[in-house]
């Protein structure tokens, strides 16, 4: 499972790089989505124990994976969806007002 932690790191840094370097606001929101996915993946990776079964105990099992990070991951997914919706609504609002989605042009308009 070593490679998967490295994948989490790469996804996290890719999300941060997208947010700080991209010019388009929609791409920046996509960077937020990637960052969020990497955090969810990290939570699920922490919850996994080798040889475990899913936490649905219809009978007694020997090894069960950790249920707490899975509940937290569920919370993260739902909140992430609503936060993305709010960010995209603000994006549409900005476009209607300034007629551009480029961050540099938006900054120049501010003066």
């Amino acid at each position, binding site marked *: 499972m070593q490679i998967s932690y490295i994948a989490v790191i790469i996804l996290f840094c890719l999300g*941060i790089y997208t947010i700080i370097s991209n010019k388009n606001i929609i791409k920046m929101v996509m960077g937020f989505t990637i960052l969020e996915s990497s955090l969810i993946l990290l939570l699920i990776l*922490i919850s996994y124990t080798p040889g475990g079964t899913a936490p*649905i105990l219809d009978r007694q099992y020997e090894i069960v994976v*950790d*249920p707490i990070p899975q509940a937290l991951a569920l919370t993260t997914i739902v909140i992430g969806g609503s936060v993305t*919706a709010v960010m995209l*609504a603000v994006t549409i*609002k900005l476009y209607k007002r300034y007629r551009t989605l480029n961050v540099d042009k938006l900054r120049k308009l501010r003066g």
Partner: protein
Amino acid sequence: MNRINVISKKLYKIGLVVSLAIFLLFIFYDIHNLESNSKRYLSDHYISEGVQETGAINIVTSVLYDYRAFDTLGEATVLLTAAAILSFLVPITKDKMRGTPFTIIVSQTTQVFIPFLAILGMYLIFFGHLAPGGGFVGGVVIALIPILLTITYRVEFSEYKFKPDKKKVSEDIGAIGFVLIGLLGILTGSNFLANGQANVSLGDAGELISAGLIPYLNIMIGIKVGAGLAIIFNSLIKEK
């Protein structure tokens, strides 16, 4: 001069991200070493005692709606806030979707699809304590019905079928019902949102009607999430 400036800025950003990656690599190396020989006392308690204490065989649901139900109330409040922000940001206007009108194939397929979506959403909500799923996911699947109506036909038809006032009322019913079910615990002399501690009859684990108050909380969350997401989507589409 300008080009050198741009290149140096880009190199600066890449260097920042790479240094963050190296920093995270060291931290994760430590976490990986910690994880292999650490004890999980709380999780072990949930796994060994959870079925007797809550009556739900899906431990994730019993963590979400019994042990940590207060967090779920906060999560539902975040959704309510998002829906409120979107209806505040967007004035009530007609929709302005660009694009071609759909052919008869799409509209007929939508009509065939909608009952299956309703059954799938209901199944996910009602079996939330027995199978993976739960109120949030079932609510999203139910919210897909007005979204499909909005995309295939226009927003007027969708709002004629599902009135905005009724959606707002049902979202409020979901939120208030969650709190009222939580207050039942206080009435029986225990804590807020108590289930097994308040001597609610838990039933046999694995049955459809079991686990005390968890199915009712699931239904309330499902109503609330479905109505809230439908409001969010129609607000986004009505932005002029």
